[in-house]
């Protein structure tokens, strides 16, 4: 893990280079700030506007965490139900894939009509984008449990519940964590989209206000913080994985 962080200087350097090119291009071509502000302006706005911005940031953090927890719980629960009751899996799984084809942008206003402007439609939006990666990953994990281990457990007299809790669930943890990592980044995006629906505060609200008043620098500040937030959430999952699926890592290191 520390090794990976040390390797991080390469992408950081590329990013820095990109910013320098951006800054110079904007200055040399004399592009107006409402079209494309230089990175230094964005940084200045991020610092100066912090007093106003941190409130929005806070509510987005709260919303994405809540949505992520609910969304991934729904995802995991769906996977468990589909796995344990094969009939349900056969009849529901194709529909789950369809659920991912409904464009959120179209669905969101409908949700507002049905559920109003409260927390409910927002959580539904985040759950919709969050649950799918976890369900798919967990289902694959459950299914890939090695037959020899299953056979041993059955011969030794494990019942369905023991088979699941003692074998299938722990075996799928690495897969579930892959799903969680994807969902974690989606949840921030989902939260921002859901805030467009109408909220008092949040990065989504801040973003809409900024873009409609041509404060492009603020739009970029919003983007910057969305990225940071996604990254932090991702790191959090990575950390949890580090402690919970130690065995997989040790096995890999040995090979």
């Amino acid at each position, binding site marked *: 893990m520390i090794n990976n962080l040390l390797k991080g200087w390469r992408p950081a350097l590329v990013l820095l280079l990109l910013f320098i090119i951006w800054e110079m291009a904007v200055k040399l071509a004399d592009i107006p700030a409402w079209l494309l502000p230089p990175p230094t302006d964005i940084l200045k706005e991020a610092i100066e506007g912090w007093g106003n911005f941190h409130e929005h940031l806070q509510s987005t953090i709260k919303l994405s965490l809540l949505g992520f927890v609910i969304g991934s719980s729904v995802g995991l629960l769906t996977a468990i139900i589909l796995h344990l009751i094969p009939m349900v899996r056969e009849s529901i799984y194709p529909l789950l894939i369809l659920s991912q084809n409904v464009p959120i942008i179209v669905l969101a206003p409908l949700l507002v009509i049905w559920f109003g402007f409260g927390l409910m439609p927002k959580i539904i939006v985040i759950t919709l984008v969050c649950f799918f990666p976890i369900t798919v990953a967990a289902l694959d994990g459950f299914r890939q449990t090695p037959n*020899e*281990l299953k*056979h*041993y*457990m*059955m*011969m*030794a*007299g*494990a019942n369905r519940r*023991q088979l699941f809790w*003692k*074998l299938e669930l*722990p*075996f799928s*943890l690495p897969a579930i964590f892959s799903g969680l990592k994807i969902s974690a980044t989606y949840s921030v995006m989902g939260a921002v989209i859901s805030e467009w629906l109408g909220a008092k505060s949040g990065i989504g609200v801040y973003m809409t206000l900024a873009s409609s008043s041509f404060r492009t620098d603020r739009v970029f500040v919003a983007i910057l913080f969305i990225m940071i937030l996604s990254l932090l959430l991702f790191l959090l999952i990575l950390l949890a994985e580090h402690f919970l*699926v130690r*065995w*997989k890592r*040790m*096995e890999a290191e*040995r090979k």
Partner: protein
Amino acid sequence: MSLLSIENVSKRFGENEVIRGLSLDVKAGEFVSILGPSGSGKSTIFNLIGGLLTPDEGTIRLQKESIIGKRGSISYMPQTPSLLPWRTILHNVLLGQELQGNINREKAIEMIEKAGLKEYIHSYPHELSGGMKQRVAFIRALLSPQPIILLDEPFSALDEWTRLGMQKWLLDIWDSHRPTILFVTHNIEEALFLSDRIFVLSHRPSHVISELKVPFSRPRNEELLLENRFLESKRTIHFALKRSNRE
């Protein structure tokens, strides 16, 4: 008195008749081997005893009670160690007991130490060699509370040297605990070296072509493998198998 008795069991999968009229029995405290060529339905027999499959005909009784379709009445050691990679050796050993309800941690630790795996007690399976893993799998089966242990070609994946070591280790531990064992193998020498009685199986559809009482006294050591009487027994079985092949 037999602890486990299988009478006249037949099993077919569609057109494919795997077992026809198989009968055998195991007495308490006995080490019995089922010896048969590959593809003679040995694993099917175990799946029938383990309750994963049900026979088309015949009875399977453990302590006079029918165990057809009843899982968990026997303790089992598979061909591959089948240890759970996220559990330490100690917790892997406890798994068999855990599934049945009662856990005896002290006894597990004692057995692991006796098996010479003391320093690995808190290690994970991937840190152990193939032979060590099989020892752990055997201890797991030994500690399970069921009255009989089924061993399904447990040493077939090991190299020659490790296998002999493991066979001697198994004899040792069997001598001190005297569990009832039903052992499946395709290796004539292994069956002769380890067991009290051997049931020789035919090709498919399999049935018992001969039952053999192993005449060697215990404790046995590896010199036995080269003695004339051992080779004589080996020849007898070999010809019995060959004869059944021709029929």
